[in-house]
């Protein structure tokens, strides 16, 4: 499915993500990484769940609020259900062993110039692009 280049929205949204990351560090002293926050909120053996659940609630409510103002939030996932579930399992296992995802490693970690985050980000960007290339251009898509 075609999507168009949206530079204004990309810069505005990216600035908000960055602002959230800086605020999280300034106020809570924490990395604004979705893997860490979600894992700490739902997995056994963690304390201090409440602020994490509050962050998750805010993140889920935000798009709903935007929709409620009549502003569209484009969404399209033309992927079969079995592939979405397989993808979720791989992502879940992967981010736990890799210690983070796009927000934690790709934004916060690289901003700290963490060598682990730079290696992790380079690795997952490369395998994402490769996987997509194989699915779309070698296997002919779903």
């Amino acid at each position, binding site marked *: 499915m075609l999507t168009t280049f949206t530079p204004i929205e990309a810069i505005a949204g990216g600035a908000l993500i960055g602002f959230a990351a800086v605020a999280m560090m300034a106020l809570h002293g924490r990395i604004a990484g979705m893997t860490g926050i979600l894992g700490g909120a739902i997995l056994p053996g963690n304390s201090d769940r409440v602020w994490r659940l509050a962050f998750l609630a805010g993140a889920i409510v935000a798009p709903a609020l935007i929709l409620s103002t009549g502003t569209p939030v484009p969404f399209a996932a033309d992927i079969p259900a079995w592939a979405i579930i397989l993808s*979720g399992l791989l992502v879940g296992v*992967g981010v736990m062993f890799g210690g983070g995802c796009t927000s934690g490693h790709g934004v916060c970690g690289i901003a700290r110039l963490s060598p682990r985050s730079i290696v992790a980000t380079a690795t*997952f960007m490369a395998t994402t692009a490769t996987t997509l290339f194989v699915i779309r251009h070698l296997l002919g898509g779903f």
Partner: protein
Amino acid sequence: MLRILTAAAIGLVFGAGIAISGMANPAKVLNFFDIFGTWDPSLLLVMATALAVTFAGYRVVLRRPAPVLDLKFHLPGTREIDVPLVAGSALFGIGWGIAGFCPGGAIPALGLGEVAPVLFVAAMAGGMYLATILRGLLGRRQALA
């Protein structure tokens, strides 16, 4: 209480950023990676802007002795580049390339009232749980060896 309210507010800003930037839209995310097909470079600007703001902000914030609402900064201490880091990240990318959802994109996408994000997040939570069990087993074996 202040910690909970500020965390919710930061979550709102994060979720709004994800929604506005297009990171909650799997079709747009996948097109960013489809350089030889229907390439949409938007996400390059999302990442670059988020990174620039965070980089500059961290320079100011981390110079302070402690965050405003906590006694210390909770920064990851590990610096070692090991097999789990690379293998886990590679696996994450394979999953991301299949459906176009990453954790930070999928959680806000739950607020759009679509079925796909619910399926994805449920499976991802299962995968995260599975990984903690696997890690426990692997850790025990290493401890025994």
